[in-house]
Structures are given as C-alpha cells and as structure tokens.
C-alpha cells in the first residue's frame, strides 16, 4: 500500500526537482496520448520540444518563442506576488486587454504626429495605468466591502472583452479601413511601434521589460520587506496581522502590481506583435500566465523558465498541428497535462511516499 507522510521540512531536492520531473512525466504521458491517436510519439515530442529551438526552422521559431514568452512572464511575475499573499487576481486577462486599449488609444490620439520620445513613454504610462485601474476595481471592492476578488476580477475579464470588441468597431476603428473592424496598425506608425530592437531576435521592449521584472521581483522577494510581508500574509494571515502587515495595503499593492504589469504586457503586445486593436485581440495570455506562475513555483527564476516552456508548448504545438496534422484538442490536452503533472509531482515536496504492507490482525 502507498502512504503519504508529511515531511518535517519541505524537501529542497523536490522543490526544484518536481518541475523537471513534471516535464518529463508530461512528455511520457503526452507520447502515450499521441501514440494512442495513431501518431509517432517520438516525432511528436521532438516536433514540440526540440524543433522550435534547434530544428531546421529555428531561425523562425526562436523569435516567436521569445515574443510569446515575454507577456506570459511579465504577467506571471505580477501575479506571483498576489498569489504568494493569498490575493487571487484571476482577471489579469482583463487588465491586459484594458492596458492594450489605453496604450493604443494614446497612440491613436496623437496619430500621425512624429514624436516617439514623447508618445511611446506616454503609451507605456497609459498601458500601466489602464491595467492598474482595472485591477483597482476588485482591490478596492475587497478592501471596502469585503467582496471576493476572484469573482470580481474574473467577471471584469468579460467586461474587458466586450469593451475591446466595442472599441474595435467603434471609437478606435481605422477611418481608412474601409469599414472593417479594427484599429490602425501601430507597427506602421513609427512613433508608437514596438518593433524588434535587433533584427531577427524577437527582442522588443516587452522582452526587455519582462527580463527586468524578473530581476526586480527576485530582489524584492528575497531582500525586501514587501516580499517578506507578502509571503508572511500568504502563509499565516494572523501572524502577518500580529507582525504589523497592513492587509488592505497589501491587497492594493499586489493587485496594483499585477494589474500594472498585465496592462504593460497588453500595451507591448498591441504596439508590436499584434499591431492593432481587434475584437479578437490575442487573448489568453492573462489566463495562461496563471499556470506559468504556478509552474514556476511563484519564484521569479522559475517563472522565467516556465514562461519559456509554456511558450514552447504553444509554438511547438502549432508546429505539430501543421506538420503532423495533430488535432488542436490533443495539443490542448497535452498542455493541460503539464499542469496536472506538476500538481501531482508537487506532493513530493511536502510529503514522502512510503510503501507499507497492511499487517493482519
């Protein structure tokens, strides 16, 4: 019989070993899945995990990978503070969309003025502000009326989705777009475009911001009292109150941080890879980032790796879909497996498995 026994100290080996083991487990289970639907399991795994980075077309995939990972990492870094403190911002997706709308609005308001030195920074500020404001709604409602931030932030995602559709066909519609929905393409407006800084690398301002946010988050979490308070509040709320942590400020701080970073991610996305406000503004970064945050153990370095890994499964998954004619549902199941594997392997961090044999009476 298997029995789980709680460890006195969480195992350090497993804390870092578990994500690796989860990836391996996902590959094994995924291979099994692909084999069961009649595809070559080794080829599928190779197409997903190997080819985008080292394969023949890596020169195309690598920049895509980086562009996909950057918003995931940036949003997940912001979320990780709240998640450590037990403040559950599930609405990063909404804050991301609003950030994009606000940033794009600023750019379009100045169109076609040529003043990148002013417009681009203003867009960044607007993006951050938009995300923060959208996140402050659940934060303030929780502080003043004790509402549940999970529900409020999630519901505001749907509001944001409706808003982006309305803006795409309304206020922000391209006047020269012959009536088609969607705004002007910002990548064609030099003062506002968030283009690759080094050709062929995929590195744009968002990527740089993502890397910076990882470094800053690392310092704050390990060295700063704010990071400590966040952790304390998450693990023992009463101890945090006794230690003097002001829970209300913590809610506002964590929600603001994740809202700001989500909004910023939205701005970089709309000004760069996506280029325009559309009804179907490239979505799901906000939700996927939740998985990235947990996959990365809410630790900045972990999130960096998890963001890259998650982007890889997307890029590789797309490649496998087109190259091997894999159904998209199979790819989604495969991505889901990653989280499930992590959660199950995770048990080993705090518990050890014992084999026992039932003794007869």
């Amino acid at each position, binding site marked *: 019989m298997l029995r789980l026994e709680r460890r*006195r100290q969480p195992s350090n080996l497993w804390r870092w070993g578990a994500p690796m083991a989860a990836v391996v487990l996902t590959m094994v289970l995924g291979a099994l899945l692909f084999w069961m639907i009649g595809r070559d399991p080794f080829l599928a795994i190779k197409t997903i995990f190997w080819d985008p980075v080292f394969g023949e077309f890596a020169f195309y995939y690598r920049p895509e990978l980086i562009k996909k990972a950057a918003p995931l990492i940036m949003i997940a870094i912001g979320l990780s503070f709240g998640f450590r403190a037990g403040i559950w911002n599930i609405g990063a997706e909404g804050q991301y969309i609003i950030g994009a709308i606000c940033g794009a609005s600023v750019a379009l308001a100045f169109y076609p003025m040529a003043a990148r030195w002013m417009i681009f920074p203003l867009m960044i500020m607007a993006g951050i502000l938009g995300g923060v404001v959208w996140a402050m709604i659940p934060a303030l409602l929780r502080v003043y009326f004790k509402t549940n931030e999970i529900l409020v932030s999630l519901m505001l995602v749907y509001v944001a989705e409706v808003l982006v559709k309305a803006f795409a066909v309304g206020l922000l519609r391209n006047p020269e777009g012959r009536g088609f929905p969607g705004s002007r393409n910002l990548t064609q407006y030099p003062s506002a475009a968030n283009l690759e800084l080094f050709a062929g690398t995929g590195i744009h301002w968002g990527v740089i911001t993502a890397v910076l946010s990882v470094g800053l988050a690392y310092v704050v979490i390990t*060295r700063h009292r704010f990071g*400590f308070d966040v952790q*304390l509040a998450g693990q*023992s709320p*009463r101890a*945090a*109150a*006794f*230690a003097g942590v002001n829970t209300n400020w913590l809610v506002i701080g964590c929600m603001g941080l994740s809202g700001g970073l989500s909004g910023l991610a939205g701005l970089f996305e709309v000004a760069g890879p996506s280029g325009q406000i559309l009804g179907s503004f490239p979505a799901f970064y906000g939700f996927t980032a939740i998985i990235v945050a947990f996959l990365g153990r809410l630790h900045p370095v972990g999130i960096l790796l998890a963001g890259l890994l998650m982007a890889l499964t997307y890029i590789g998954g797309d490649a496998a879909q087109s190259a091997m004619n894999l159904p998209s549902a199979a790819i989604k199941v495969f991505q889901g497996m990653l989280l499930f594997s992590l959660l199950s392997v995770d048990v080993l961090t705090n518990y050890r498995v014992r084999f026992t044999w039932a003794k007869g009476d």
Partner: protein
Amino acid sequence: MREILLKLEGLTKAYPGVVANSGVDLAIQKGEVHALLGENGAGKSTLVKTIYGLVAPDAGHMTFEGKPFRPADPRAARAVGIAMVFQHFSLFEALTVVENIALGMEHPPTMRALATQIKAVSQTYGLPLDPQRIVGDLSAGERQRVEIIRCLLQDPKLLIMDEPTSVLTPQEVRILFATLRQLRAQGTAILYISHKLEEIRALCDQATILRLGKVVANCDPQQVSAKEMAEMMVGSALQAPKKQTVTEQGAVALTLSQLSAPAPQAFGTPLRDINLTVRSGEVLGIGGVAGNGQEELVAALSGEMRVAANMIQLYGQAVGALPPNARRKLGLCAAPEDRNGHAAAPDLSLTENALMTADARMGLSRHGFINRPQARSFASAVIKRFDVRTPSTDILARALSGGNLQKFVIGREILQAPKVFVVNQPTWGVDAAAAAAIRQAILDLAEAGAAVICISHDLDELMEISDRFAALNGGRLSPPSPTASLSLDQIGLMLGGAHDMEVAHVKA
C-alpha cells in the same frame, strides 16, 4: 479486587524520531477513576489515542472485558463502550447544542427526542444544559458539558477525559468532580489525564505515571504527596522560579483607561470598560476562563486591533490608535497565545520568524531592505539565550516542538528589551523544565525594570510569578489585588464563579 475492564500489555508506538510509548502496561478496573500522569510529550495522548482507535500500536495488545481488543477506528472503540472527551472541543459554534450532539451520532433520533434525552442526562448528572442554545454563546465549561453529555448518551463503560479542568474555574471543577464520582459509583471507569496533581489526589483511585513513553510508577494518589508525584513525573527534583519581593514601586508604565472594543469576529468577546495601571518592575497576572476576552485584550495591546488613542497610554503617550510596529518602537511588545500561525509563522524559518516582530525595534532592515545576517544573528541570540533546541536558524518553525517554539517566541520578544511586555499563556503545552525557564525569564525581565502583563489560564502559574492579580470575565477586568492576599476561593469568584451551575442537583 474488582473486575478489570481494560488491560494494556506491552503497548509500543514509535513515530519517526521518537518512541511515544514503549512497553506500556496498564489495567483499569470497573468503577475506578484512573489517573494518567505525565509531562507534555510523555506519551499520554498517544496512549489514549491507541485506546480510542485513533492510533494503531506497533506492538503489544489490549483486552477489553477479557476479550482481545484492537479498535481500527474510534467507531469500533465506541461500539464496545469507550467514550472520550477531548481537550480541544470539536463543536460547531453556529449550531445549537442538540444539533451538535446529533452530528456526532451515527443514527441520531429526532431532534425533539434527542433534546429530551439531553435534558434527562443533564438532570441525572447535575450538568444543567439547555439543548436549544447556540454553542457559540456558551462558556468553555458549558461547552465541555456538551462534550460530556455527548459521551454519556452512549452509556459508556469507560470514559476518557483529556485535561478536562484546564478551562474550568475552581467551582466548575468541583461540580465536574461530583459528576465523575457519581459515574464511578455507577460502575463507569474513568481514565483521567492531567498534570494537575492536587486534582488527581482529590479524585483518583489509581495513578499511572508516564515519563518519556514508559510507565515509571503506579501509585495510589491518596497515599503519595503531590511533590513526590511531580518528581516521579519529571524524574528529578523541581526548582521553583525565584521571585524577588518588590520593595519600591516603579513609575507607571502602562495605563488602560476605559478600554472598550467590539468583538473583532463572531463569537469573540467585546472588551468592556477596562481600567488598569501597570508599573515598571511589576508582573500583573490576569486570570480567566478561556474565551473571556484574553485574545481581544492582547490584540488591543499589541496593535492588531486599533482602539481610541487615549484608551492605551504608554508612559503617558496615547498609543491606542498606533499600528503594531509603531508600538514596538516605543517599547510595547506582545506574545499572543497561539504560537502556530499567530505568534509565529510555522512555514517560515526561525530567522524569518525573528524578523517578523523584531525588525522594528532591532533595526533588522534598512529602507525596507532586509539585513539577513543581522536577522540571523538575532535569531541565534534568542536560540542561545533561551536554550531553543534546533540544529540551525534556517529550520522551519513548524519543525520545532511546541515547547521549543514557545521558548523562541517568548525569547524573541524579551531579547528586544521591551518596556512593557504582554504575554498570553506563556507556558501552555510546554514541559515543566521549559515552563520554569520561561517564568524565570519573565521575572528577570520585570526585575530589569519592565512592566509585564501575564495572561494565563494556569492559576498556579499566576500565583507563582505575579505581584498583583486581576480576572477577566466576559470582557471586563476586575480591579487588581495583591496576589499574596488572595485565596484560591476568592480567585474562583473573581473568575466568575461557576457558570449557572446548580450544585443542588448533584447527589454527592
């Protein structure tokens, strides 16, 4: 000799790193009150959990009424007639008495029939209890009665009671004992776990003393003195903390004037018009039955719960509206009761736990950036000075035993050299040696000029260390009196006497 009800032979149970029970033999006769004595960690709980089917022994066997007995779960133990009243009640505060009792039954009768049964049992045993009352409104003594009646409804042959008097006033203890004697007279055996020796001498017929998992003695508590039993329990002669007699009065350190506050949560106790003055160099003991405002008073003093500024004055400065860290900087430190998750964070290391409250006063961070080496060395200083048994400062707090963590928590505050120190239940669940060390540290702190407020359920402790004594009852504080002038009976009355207890019902 009377018939033996339960017999344990060679019972052994080991956990990783500790042997909780080792070759324990025990025999309980019908109609006997059998005491199980021992310090915290001596293996009492493991032993009764084995009897109650919560723990499976590694070796040894039990017989109940002559038949082999090996309960797989508490249900099996209840089926043969064993009932247990736990130290910590498992009651739902928002439900009524009768609903709570019905929840614990496998086949509950209708609520009305059950209520009638509860009334009948409570009449018979002199345990008055209204079945329709909400448990959240009951005193600790009344809640215990709910648990006892729940057991008595099963008509048990053996009743196990785990530290039943730790939450009762002296008067309530007397009534409880009358009930237990009545049960004994009817042939029910009682296994009574306690470390209060005078109680055991007053109530029990037999005593088994455990130390480090082994039976070290069996005795008749009527024949042996409390001091002898204590020494058998501890294994060495006990040393009481030395208390200096206060010669001159210090300056007024802390003044509470008309301190009132609403209950911070449902079923909490509001504080009502508390007036108090504590001088530097004195220890003020505050007694009271659990749930009479102790936690709320500590929260108001530590700053977790904010009140009007003037309600709390520290050396003349109004601090009632200040947050915890501002109060710490001014010299007001506190140690709440619950060390797991309140006074300490179990999943953080000792260094981080030191940082938790000592940052403000000891300057362990600058501009918000934590000085880890300094935090670590402060944690080491606490560990060294208070003899906390731990391999390093990086160990998680939850890996420490209760006594060691308590020493750490108290030491963390005392080493900050507070001017006023408020502590709630300083030695709860701590072994005798550690308790003595903590009490001594509190006395030393007062001697060095701090004012100390010590809140405790343990009256003996308060008698030992406090200069003046006051009682909390329903969120009100009695005027303090010099401890030396008080008798135990007077204290009992200060604590609120027996909550609606009618001694007249009991046929002694």
